[in-house]
């Protein structure tokens, strides 16, 4: 292994395997460590070792042992040592190091060094390592250079340093003297572009301090009068310089793609923006008096700057950002939006990205101007770059309103048609927002709306999550015209039952769920409707067989859809007439009578009981769902399963059992609708011998691993550590967190009535990544004023602990239901 830096680098590069490379690096690293400990090592050797160390730093190796040596090098009298020492210090040290204190002294000396290259090194390093302590100690030295140096090279660095230091320690504003700046500005021989950049930086620091609050007032500085007023004297000068820069065509040395110094232009525009932001904030007439001039200048820049090159775009972009951050007058805002639209229309993805990002932010300020460019936005939906598609998508929804709904939704459908699994996030985002859109906008043409959803299911059904499927079902359910619904089902069926059609893949679970549900609800409409003979493939047998086949596919793999199929089988049984098919459906339900999945087992058994009821009883229970209001985002199963009804309407035997175990049954889904309860009770009243053993099994399983203390006392007392999470005119809700560990939390909710509350029903939802087990209300769902009832919750999963809770109850014995809903976030996470 050679001893020079070059040969070391060569060795590392030449390593054949990773292990070789590691061996070389480890060996060299150890060697450097030993060498650096040797006090008698000649300077030249020290330098080589530090250089090697820096190479190791670039490779991501540990280099902390070189920190002291880098300071030693800085302390050397030789320029080459100093240069390397400062480089090592800026790379290896950070602001928290104690070694910085050592460095302060050396920086102090070097800032006064007769060699301007040493001063320059010290300034560069100070720019990196500026900390509040360094700021206080070294600001006078930097100021000294600003005051006395005639060298633009040092001046620009000193200005930049001063900007950093002032920003680090705003009490320096007291000693900062604006005249230092004005003097530099007026001296043409030293005021180069670099020096001007430094000046913009100082101004930005000072203005940002003004924007971030008025700490200075305590120190006796009136920011508005003492700082901003003198600073505003520079405004006119700035306008002139910026205008000159912008209108200059060619300035050798500063030309970037035909634009004169875009860097300085951007910094100046940004500085001016800060001026006016602070001016607005402090209502300073010194600054705001120039606002019209500023608007005129921005208009000229916006119109005259060439938008075809990256450098021009940077300036235009900065201009647009300024227009909107100051919310300048409407013509300027429209001009700004038009500039962005021009960016969108181009081919360059960089400008499209920037434009979409900015348009998203300005939609609220100038909605109509943005809407005007929706063609370009829709065009971006088809872009190759996923981040552009995502932004175009967000923007499409942001500008969507009643007037362009149909047009934009059609564009979105085109967009969906082109997505594949890689852009799942985009699909989910689109569906979420489309569902919301249809919730908030009234669409007159409901058949079009259903067609949209048909298309969605067709295109991206496999990617839609269950919650959104539920929302889609609600939308279908709430469609007013039966004809539209039956038409919808007709279309679903003909695509699925037509064996030739390959349009619907077998794993399109979203499609299948919706279809199954619709068969249960509207099967009769299709079978008996006027359009019956349109398609021969749709008949009782084909639908029954479809359910059977689907059931077979998913027997063990997806209990969700089996749940749907069971309910649909039951519902369909009263809508068809062929005894053979009805029997098939009964057999389908019976298949799960001893399923290992408790929910399915229970459903199967309960449905079997329904099945044997007389048709009139069944018809009442199995009626088509009524129109319903959407409640939070929580129901897993739109159809209220009979299981939930049990928990809402406790049957004596069951509640006894439950009280004993101090634990209620699991509710993995909450019923949204209330079916005719009396009939159910009638049935279960006789037959609870079937459900009860099931329950018991479940309860025992639960109670063994549940730490909740058994409640023997009928009165629930509000524990002192419970925090109030909700307060309304009718009740208070408290929460008490019993335990939180990773993946599992137990908590109790306490409901304290302010006046008589009866039939309290609670619906809880947790974030997607979590699962909620909801206990029963204890002691009862009726609470007298000031009494408390309690409910235990178990949340498993991951993420922040938060709840959305909806309460339904009757107040003071009134027959109408009161709804209340609230969200609560806990500080804890799972």
């Amino acid at each position: 292994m050679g001893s020079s830096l070059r040969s070391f680098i060569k060795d590392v590069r030449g390593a054949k395997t990773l292990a070789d490379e590691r061996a070389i690096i480890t060996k060299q690293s150890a060697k450097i460590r030993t060498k650096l400990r040797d006090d008698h090592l000649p300077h030249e050797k020290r330098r080589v070792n530090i250089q090697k160390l820096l190479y190791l730093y670039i490779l991501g190796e540990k280099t902390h042992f070189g920190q002291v040596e880098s300071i030693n090098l800085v302390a050397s009298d030789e320029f080459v040592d100093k240069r390397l020492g400062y480089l090592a210090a800026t790379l290896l040290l950070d602001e928290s190091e104690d070694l910085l204190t050592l460095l302060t002294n050396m920086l102090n000396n070097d800032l006064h060094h007769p060699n301007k290259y040493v001063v320059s090194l010290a300034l560069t390093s100070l720019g990196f390592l500026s900390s509040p302590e360094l700021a206080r100690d070294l600001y006078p030295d930097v100021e000294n250079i600003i005051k006395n140096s005639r060298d633009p090279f040092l001046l620009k660095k000193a200005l930049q340093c001063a900007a950093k230091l002032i920003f680090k320690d705003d009490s320096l504003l007291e000693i900062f003297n604006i005249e230092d700046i004005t003097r530099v500005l007026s001296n043409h021989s030293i005021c180069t572009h670099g020096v001007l950049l430094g000046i913009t930086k100082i101004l930005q620091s000072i203005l940002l301090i003004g924007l971030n609050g008025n700490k200075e007032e305590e120190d006796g500085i009136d920011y508005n009068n003492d700082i901003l007023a003198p600073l505003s004297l520079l405004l006119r000068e700035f306008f002139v310089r910026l205008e000159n820069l912008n209108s200059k065509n060619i300035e050798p040395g500063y030309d970037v793609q035909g634009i004169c110094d875009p860097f300085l232009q951007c910094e100046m525009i940004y500085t001016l923006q800060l001026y006016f932001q602070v001016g607005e904030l402090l209502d300073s007439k010194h600054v705001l008096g120039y606002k019209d001039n500023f608007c005129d200048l921005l208009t000229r820049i916006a119109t005259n700057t060439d938008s075809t090159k990256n450098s021009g775009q940077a300036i235009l972009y900065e201009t647009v950002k300024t227009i909107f951050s100051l919310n300048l007058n409407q013509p300027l805002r429209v001009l700004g939006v038009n500039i962005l639209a021009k960016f969108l229309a181009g081919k360059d993805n960089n400008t499209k990205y920037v434009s979409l990002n900015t348009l998203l932010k300005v939609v609220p300020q100038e909605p109509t101007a943005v809407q005007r460019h929706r063609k370009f936005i829709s065009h971006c939906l088809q872009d190759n770059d996923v981040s552009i598609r995502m932004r175009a998508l967000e923007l499409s929804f942001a500008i969507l309103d009643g007037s362009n709904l149909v047009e934009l939704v059609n564009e979105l459908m085109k967009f969906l048609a082109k997505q594949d699994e890689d852009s799942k996030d985009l699909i989910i985002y689109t569906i979420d927002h489309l569902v919301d859109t249809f919730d908030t906008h009234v669409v007159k043409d409901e058949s079009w709306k259903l067609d949209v959803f048909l298309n969605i299911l067709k295109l991206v059904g496999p990617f839609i999550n269950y919650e959104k499927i539920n929302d889609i079902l609600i939308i279908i359910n709430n469609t007013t015209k039966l004809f539209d619904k039956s038409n919808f089902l007709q279309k679903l069926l003909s695509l699925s039952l037509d064996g030739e059609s390959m349009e619907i893949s077998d794993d399109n679970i979203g499609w299948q769920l919706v279809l199954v549900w619709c068969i249960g609800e509207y099967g009769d409409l299709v079978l008996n409707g006027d359009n019956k003979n349109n398609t021969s493939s749709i008949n009782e047998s084909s639908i029954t067989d479809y359910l059977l086949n689907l059931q077979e596919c998913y027997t063990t793999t997806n209990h969700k859809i089996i749940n749907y199929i069971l309910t649909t089988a039951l519902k369909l049984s009263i809508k068809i007439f062929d005894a053979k098919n009805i029997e098939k459906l009964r057999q389908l339900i019976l298949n799960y009578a001893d399923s290992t999945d408790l929910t399915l087992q229970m459903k199967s058994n309960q449905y079997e009981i329904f099945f044997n009821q007389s048709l009139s009883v069944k018809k009442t229970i199995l009626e088509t769902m009524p129109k319903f209001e959407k409640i939070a985002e929580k129901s897993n199963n739109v159809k209220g399963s009979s299981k939930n009804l049990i928990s809402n309407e406790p049957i004596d035997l069951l509640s006894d059992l439950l009280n004993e175990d101090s634990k209620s049954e699991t509710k993995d889904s909450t019923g949204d609708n209330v079916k005719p309860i009396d009939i159910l009770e009638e049935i279960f009243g006789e037959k609870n011998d079937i459900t009860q053993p099931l329950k018991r099994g479940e309860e025992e399983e639960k109670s063994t691993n549940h730490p909740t203390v058994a409640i023997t006392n009928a009165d629930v007392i509000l524990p002192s550590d419970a925090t109030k999470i909700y307060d309304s005119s009718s009740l208070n809700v408290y929460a008490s967190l019993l335990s939180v560990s990773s993946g599992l939390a137990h908590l109790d909710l306490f409901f304290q009535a302010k006046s008589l509350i009866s039939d309290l029903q609670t619906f809880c939802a947790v974030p997607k990544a979590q699962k909620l087990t909801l206990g029963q209300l204890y002691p009862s769902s009726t609470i007298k004023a000031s009494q408390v009832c309690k409910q235990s919750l178990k949340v498993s999963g991951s993420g922040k602990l938060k709840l959305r809770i909806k309460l339904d109850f009757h107040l003071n014995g009134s027959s109408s239901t009161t709804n209340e809903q609230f969200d609560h976030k806990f500080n804890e996470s799972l």
Partner: protein
Amino acid sequence: MGVQFILCFNKQGVVRLVRWFDVRSSDPQRSQDAIAQIYRLISSRDHKHQSNFVEFSDSTKLVYRRYAGLYFVMGVDLLDDEPIYLCHIHLFVEVLDAFFGNVCELDIVFNFYKVYMIMDEMFIGGEIQEISKDMLLERLSILDRLD
């Protein structure tokens, strides 16, 4: 405004230059993890069809550009003007090119300390300080001779 860091790595992800301008975490491992993440993010992007900007974290977005086999990356604030940083990168590469005369990866590998010198004449504490190529090169040739 201001650059949080400048990074340069090749297509294989081997780092050639790294300079953090913001307060570095005292944990070097975190910096290394960040670099690895940045490499994965950028190298997986479509060179032709995707923009040169990508969001990286809650406080940082990346502006990058590939020159032959080398990626030059700048980390900037989320609200910053991306196109101008692309100009920054380009200017930096142009200066490198002029300084070394048709710069290639090996120039940067073997003369990394000179590249830092160039970087430090262009940026100070993450802010651009000089934009004139002529001035930069004149200054750099003097500094280079001070060895």
